[in-house]
């Protein structure tokens, strides 16, 4: 439910983002018990630099409000793909929001699009793609790593968006995307060590007038293609007070 629709109040099983400050955020699963390192079920208490939070107490609180920690407070925010990108557990190097936005823009993805993605990685881009294409669209995502596939599948289910995505374990460079997808994709995205190996398979899958996008350089024929790199620069804004000298000495030049 968490990522599918917005809601006002936190319920059992939701993912919430605990916001401490602009550089410190954590994704928490609202459940009464959690497994610790020794694989034992213990009470779900989340520790921060501002104190502890009994996660179960979040149930019933409203998103966007302050919650008390034992030595301070924090905000609980509704999960979004952007916040998830900043807080998700990394299994691979992920793609961040500026690149994600460029990808979605260039691929012209809209509600109802059928998108194919490989590799899934940690699912950062996947969450943003799903938000864009639901409810009628579908995301087919592939990764050759068994563990990553199962974690991704589980995450999509927990986040309430499992119905919009199919995760499959497959080496798309060797075996392609599966013939059932031929001619079905509006957009295809490759983030692989050797994307050129997957290109012939990609060509079969993309519809007439579909789009192909990769994170690495791509040499070859294409109707219309563009290679860009983007770098976001964040400005640090500070209020600094300075004295102003008004002595007559300074004005008699």
């Amino acid at each position: 439910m968490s990522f599918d629709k917005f809601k006002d109040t936190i319920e059992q099983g939701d993912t919430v983002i605990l916001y401490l400050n602009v550089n410190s955020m954590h994704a928490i699963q609202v459940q009464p018990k959690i497994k610790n390192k020794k694989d034992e079920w213990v009470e779900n208490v989340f520790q921060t630099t501002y104190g502890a939070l009994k996660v179960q107490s979040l149930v019933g609180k409203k998103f966007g409000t302050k919650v008390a920690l034992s030595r301070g407070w924090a905000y609980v925010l509704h999960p979004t793909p952007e916040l998830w990108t900043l807080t998700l557990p990394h299994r691979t190097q992920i793609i961040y929001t500026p690149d994600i936005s460029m990808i979605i823009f260039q691929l012209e993805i809209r509600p109802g699009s059928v998108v194919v993605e490989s590799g899934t990685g940690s699912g950062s881009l996947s969450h943003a793609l799903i938000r864009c294409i639901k409810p009628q669209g579908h995301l087919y995502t592939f990764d050759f790593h068994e563990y990553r596939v199962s974690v991704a599948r589980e995450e999509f289910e927990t986040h309430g968006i499992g119905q919009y995505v199919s995760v499959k374990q497959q080496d798309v460079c060797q075996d392609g995307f599966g013939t059932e997808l031929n001619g079905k994709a509006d957009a295809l995205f490759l983030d692989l060590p050797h994307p050129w190996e997957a290109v012939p398979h990609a060509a079969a899958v993309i519809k007439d007038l579909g789009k192909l996008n990769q994170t690495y350089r791509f040499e070859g024929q294409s109707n219309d293609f563009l290679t860009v790199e983007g770098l976001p620069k964040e400005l640090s804004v500070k209020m600094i007070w300075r004295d102003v000298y008004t002595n007559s000495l300074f004005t008699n030049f």
Partner: protein
Amino acid sequence: MANEMEKNNVKVGDYIVIQRQNYTKLHKVTLKGIVMLGKDQLELGPIIGRPVWKTYKMIPKKNGKRVFVLKECDNYESLAEQLKKDVSCGSDNRNIFDDGRSQLLSTEEIVSLRTSGMSGQAIVGQLIENSKTFRDKTEYSQEKYLKKKEKKYFEYITIRWPTIRLITEVMYRTDPLKIMGLRMDTLSQILTIVGIHTHGTYMVYESGCQGLVAAAMLNNINIGGQLVHIHPGNLPQKQAILAMNYDNDKMSCLISVNIYSLLRKLQENSASDENNVEVNKKESVINESFLSESESDNKAIKNEENSSNDVIDTKENVITEKGSGSGRLVCDSLKKDDKEFVEEKEITLNVVHERKRKHSDPGESMSKKPRWELETEKAADFLRPSKADGLVIISREHPSNILTALLPYVAPSRPFIIFCPYREPLLEIYIQLKRKNNTVGLRVTETWLRSHQILPSRTHPDILMSGSGGYLLTGIVVECSTSTNTQESGSSLQ
């Protein structure tokens, strides 16, 4: 499903993008369409009724001027491929001396070749034959030469269906100032950060961007979602929205409202009819007086507005030359008391009152509500109970007061984002917001974008690069806490 629109056949009244090599132009299809592509005039008759993504060859009309008719063809042939095959090349440029006289044909001769109706390929072939140095150039140099000539003599065009990506490219390239320097990467970030769900409600305050941001947001919303498009003045800038050829279903998700009308509607309780009328009259005065430059831009598309019945009763003959005096006035503080607010503005705008205008007959307003008022009510109804899921502000005016006025109508834990071509207004707003406790996650960012040339052994970043794509202030709305804690990060409770 998403590409069904692109399989459309071209109809009269559609907007299309005409592409010739890298040059793209937005064009509205008319029955006897003629379009200028650089210095060439094309007659677009043959494209009507044909699917998009077709390529057409430009065939000169043989009357000496550069007028062309179009003939459909399967594909275009690259000049470089054709002509390079038969020519040998040199290994480096040590013996090549550029004295400007390597081309034996004179300018007049070349021009006459062109007007004689010779095909582009033949002309370039002639140029190569009459060039002293072509055979000595390296292979890469020959390719570059041919590509350059191809640009000039290319005689194929492709008809494409407008998409946000294409329109942004066209507008940014033609005149970036018309869209306030909103580069595509910044626009893409706006769309992702505001996080559009198809069934959400979103507010966008837009002025000075030709409707591009509203069109882009509308692209991702379907029936069930709403986009409240807020603008100064009476008519929104709609160029990009029209260019997207949105169907009626999509357009039903869009509500365009004037900012003052909307704010008043959101703030009023139940006013009596009498008050309403008086307020309406004064409101129409204010609406006109705050016409920004968007009005003069809108004159060009006013005809289209008229035909779609979007014009307010009182405004028919009113758009006179207001001049720049009345434009760009920023409302300093929107007072809750309607009357006080109205009077304050009337004092400062006495000049405007002198001009000719038609007022709505009070009797008329009472019996039938004008369309803009119905739209405003509709928008207010969406925003009052459950507030918006996101807010985008991209304005010529200083965003500060606009943000203050609209932020209360964004639900908690939802993003808002402000675009500005300069950083200073955003820095001011950042400081202001830090003092209140109603937002978190504040960031001011700018993106740096560079494109690359990709060719075998010649891959490198492009030499020319855009300086700035504008700045963004983003944040998340939270419920204002009642505690007096002014620090952002959690500190110990007293």
